[in-house]
Each structure stands twice: as C-alpha cells, then as structure tokens.
C-alpha cells in the first residue's frame, strides 16, 4: 500500500502536480532571533514558483514584539496579512520586492498569516507563527501541578 507514496508526496510538493495549487502544511521551519532589547527579528521569503512561505512555520520563543523582513522572490505579486495585537498588518509584495512589518503577539499559541489576494491562501500561501512559553505566573491557577499530554 505504500508503493507510490513518495511519488505522490512529490506531486503534492509543487504547484499543478497532484493538486492545482500547493497543498497546505508545506514548507520549512524557522526561528526568530531575540535582540538585546528583547525584540525579536525574523525573515520570511516567498521563493520562485513554489507558492510557499519560507519559513512556513516561524517559531518565537515567547510573546512580544517581532520585526519581520518580508521578501517576494516569486515572479508573481503577492501580499501578506499578518496577525498583531491592535490590528492585522497588511503589506503588498509585488514581484521581486522587499518590505518590513512590526508585530506584537501574545504567547502561548499559534497564529496564521497569509497572502489574501486571488486564492493565494488556498493555493499554498498560509503559514504559522508559533509562540512558545506559558501564561505569566500571576495568571495561572492556584493548584498543584497537573499532568499534561
């Protein structure tokens, strides 16, 4: 039953293979770097003809401020709608362009980001920002430590 899986996975890993666009949950994982001021920094790129964010999953060590550099190396125009406390952040990313965004996010949990133009999101350009950590001590329940999955 497993014969052909690798071939099918390869077909799923590109546009107009098995699917019309690019199946979600593709792409690389990256980590934000924390500066001495506590602000985090990361770069996200759209490679040519792949319809995927790189990294598609960005890990933040904790909640707080994130400075993002966004690069569109694709041969088509995209954009980015990014989660941030206060309001979502929007930027156009025409072919071969580079811009920046400032985000503020709580932790823990994960947030989506995407390219809300055409059907970019359905065709692959959805990514996640994963914020690690715990709720602050003052917000936690007064009870003995409990088992977790």
């Amino acid at each position, binding site marked *: 039953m497993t014969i052909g899986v690798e071939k099918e996975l390869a077909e799923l890993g590109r546009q107009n293979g098995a699917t019309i666009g690019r199946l979600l949950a593709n792409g690389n994982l990256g980590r934000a770097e924390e500066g001495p001021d506590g602000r985090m920094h990361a770069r996200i790129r759209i490679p040519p003809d792949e319809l995927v964010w790189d990294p598609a999953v960005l890990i933040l060590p904790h909640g707080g401020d994130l400075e993002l550099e966004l690069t569109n190396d694709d041969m088509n125009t995209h954009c980015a709608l990014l989660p941030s406390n206060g*309001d979502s952040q929007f930027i156009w990313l025409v072919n071969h362009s580079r*811009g*920046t965004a400032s985000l503020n996010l709580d932790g823990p949990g994960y947030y989506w980001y995407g390219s809300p133009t055409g059907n970019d999101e359905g065709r692959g350009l959805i990514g996640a920002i994963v914020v690690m950590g715990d709720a602050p001590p003052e917000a936690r329940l007064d009870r003995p430590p409990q088992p*977790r999955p």
Partner: protein
Amino acid sequence: MTETAEPYVNAGHAVDQVSLTFVAGSAPPVARNVTYERILGARSEPHNWLTYYGAYDGQRYSPLEQINTGNVRRLTPAWVFQCGSTGLQAGATTYSFEAAPIIVDGVMFVTGWDGWCWALDAATGQELWRYKHAIPFDVSLCCGNVNRGVAVAKGKVFYVTQNAHVIALDATNGKPVWDKTYGDVRAGESATVAPLIIKDKVIVGSSGGEFGVRGHLDAFDLETGEHAWRCYMVPKPGEPGSETWPKDGEAWARGGANCWITGTYDPELNLLYVGTGNPAPDFDGEVREGDNLYTDSLVAVDPDTGQIRFHYQYNPHDVWDYDSIAEHILFDLDGRKALAHFDKNGYGFILDRTDGQLIRVFPFVDRITWGEIDANGKVTPKVYPDKEGEPVHFWPGPAGGKEWTHAAYSPKTQLLYVPVQDVGATATRRRREFKEGIPYWGAGVAVDGEDMAGSVSAFDPRTGREAWRWRNDVPMCSSVLATGGDLVFAGKPSGEFIALNARTGELLWQFQCGSGHHSSPTTYSVGGRQYIAVPTGWGGWVEGFLPGMLGAPHGAGLFAFALPD
C-alpha cells in the same frame, strides 16, 4: 538570498488593515464622564445602555416607549453593520456575534468574535474605530469563538479576549491603555464574559469549565489595570465548602465553576450576584463525590474584597452540565429584596437576595426528566449517566431549559420573560484521565436533533405561574429585551427578529435578518429617535443547544431598527 541581481522594489512597511478602510479612527469623548454614579443611575438616562444588562439589576428593561404596541408594525431597519472576516480565525465554524451593544450618548461600543471590538455611530452605523486583538488559532474554546460585550467607564472601553486577557482601550480611538492576562490558556482557560464596572474596579470571570480548570472571578483597578483580587469558586482543601469535594485526590483542583456570564449588583447590600458553571468532569460524578461547591450556584460576592458572603446551589453534584451561570435579575417582590434565576435544569427560582433563602421554585419548561425539585428546594435526581458506556436520555439537555441568553423583567408589567429551550440529550459516560488543556467531559453527548420546541414565556414571580407563552417550533436561543412600550423583543434561530406584546404574548412584528440570533438586543435613542439594536450571527455552541440547525446561515450583521423618520 536573491534570485536576481536586480535591486528589490521597496515594499515599505506593513500598515494597519484598518487604514485600508473608510474608518475615521476616532469617536467623540462620550465615555469620559461615565462614572460609577452614572452607571448606578443608568435607568434614569434611558437614551443610553450603559452597562451589560442596561442597569445593575439585570432586568434588561428600558423605559423607552417611542416604539410601542401601537406602532411597532412600522419598525424598519435604520442601518446594518457587517463584519465578515479576512483569512483564518480561531473557531472558524463556531464564531458567533453574541454581544450586548453598549450605547453612550450616540456612540455604540460592541465586540465580535476573534478579538474584535468596535465603536460605531449609533445613529448611522458608521464605524468610528476598531481594535483587533490577535487570537491564537489554537486557543481552547469549549463552545465557540464568541464574546459577550464591553464595559465602559472613565473614558475607557473594557473587554476580554479569547486567550484570557482583559484590555482597557481609549474610548476615543481604540488604542490600548492597559492589557492584563488573567487566565492560563495552557490549562484550557479562556474568556468570553462582558466585564462589569463596580466602583473603581472592572470585574471579569473565566471560561474553561469543560477543560477541568478551577473557576475564578477577578477584579482590576480600572485606571491602572492593577490586580485587586481573585475569588476562586472551588475552595482549596480546608477552606469553607471543601468538605463537599473528595477528601483525597485533586478533584477540587479541576472542579470547574467558571463565571462566564456577567453578574448583577445591589449597591445597597454591596453584593455582586454571580452564577457559576458546571463541575468538571461534566458528566462523570463518580470522580468528584459530594455537592461540589460552589459549582452551579448563585454566589454573592463582596465586590470590594472578593469575599464570598453566601451561596445557593441549584444543582448539587451536577452530572448533566447544568451551569447556573445565567443572570440573577434583581427586583422588588412586594417590598422584599428578591432575585430571579432561570436555571439550565428547567426550574425558575425566586430567592431573597439579602441571604439567599428560597422564596419560590417552579418549572418553566415542559419536559424535565433528570429529576425534580420540590417546593422547599429539595433536589431529587432521577436520571443520570452513572454507568460506564450506558446511554442515558434526559430533558433538558446540557444547553438547558434556558441557556446563558438572558431573561428580562418589566417593572411595568411585573412579569419575567424567558427564552425557553425544550430539547433533550443522550449522555453516555466515558471516563477519561485528566490531562491539562484537554476537554474533560467524562461522557459522549448527543443533543436531540428532533422532537424539540421553544417559546418566549412570561411568568408572574409572585406565583410562579405562566402568564402567557409565545410558541416556536424550535428552541429560543437569544436574550429577550423588555421595553416601556409594552414590548418584548427576541430573535429566532431561523433569523426573524420579533416583537411580542408584553401583556399577551401576541406576535406584533418580525423582520428576517438572514441569520439566526444568539445575542442580547439592546435599545437606546439618539436625537429623540429610539433604536433597537441586535447582533445576529448563528454560531457558538449550536451543537449543544440546537444541533438540528447546525447548517443554518452563519451571518455577521448588527441590525439597528427604528420607526421611519
């Protein structure tokens, strides 16, 4: 890494999404002079709806009478505020517009799902500003992506987020003033409640009763956000009430009793009346023997200190998921300080609010099979899921004979108006090991998709007798609103917003809003014109209260109705 030697086009810096709209970004400073004293006298300024229930007493009654039984047939939409969503969101298929709009001198403050908060021009529906908190996609939500509204005071708008923050915004521009975390999302906590202002504090409760948390109420200084107190609704070992939990083990630590609906307040007694949620696990009572205080209870709290003064438990040792979070309506009963509460268990209670003594108890829904409560308040369970793997059917189902959506009381007619849900459910006990952040029900539950009914029913609190009933073919799942025009407004799951004669229950008017109702309508006036505002948007825990309509249109519109100019 570049793919070409050509320099990049400068895409600039990302902008707020709101900058790509026509939203002005500012509102008149109407909230600056909203003080505790003004909220105390809220009913004396009926052009406003200053606090969640309209006034501290929870009556959901407005003396406004421009719209009345004689002219309500001419009621027409004045404006509609629509808010669809962009991209993915938490609880994507369970979002629901559940708020009670607050109105201050022509400005409406209202929340949506997924962290939205808006200021609108209450006469035109024009959006004045917005604040959008980013909500984690994976936040634990037992019952949908919802929020029940804001509190307003001292120039600020207060609301909670699904990831358990309480936030103060500048009421003139929606910019954050302070932001505090008061729940642990890794433990399964969340927040949906509309805050309540009492004196210098903003008071909020926690959600998460289906995840085995320990419910609590918190107070913050409304100016600074400094935490003032926390009141746990399940006692620790050794505290009063702890004798109602197993002596050994940690059932108390996972006991539930969340306060996810706004309380009511008697300033003379200085008592805050809070309803608490189900114990956890919801249906497996064997792991938490005892009455399980203060789950499913009225808890009277001193708002200055967070100390519990007294309680009345509606469902000792609940194994039907009968939260008692629903409102406690404060009213005068022949000179006696009374309160009314319609519980999920299908009984209406009239209590003395000075000490919690029972005055009267009566059934308000036709089918009650889980057990019975006699005239003295004695509870006798009859049907419950006590055997592993054995299905048990009971009425009302876990959503209750009445859900969280609110009843109303008209001091003019002296009647209580109740949205009634007559729908049963089958629970099959399935024990599971507790793990933090994982649903902890202790059963598989299927709510009936057939053989159901609903109504808006009027009751005389002096006798417990039903004065009239307006029947619907499915449960009624929205709050009701009573007005000085002798009208009762309610929303139907099938989308119609209706007006009933408050004295007879006669249907006088209806308008199809295009989506079912699961929110709290309010009323106000601007420039002498009365409006009725109702958020629509069918969602939330539909599988719990009306699974037979899970396929109904979702919607996301706030309607304001008025008489023609």
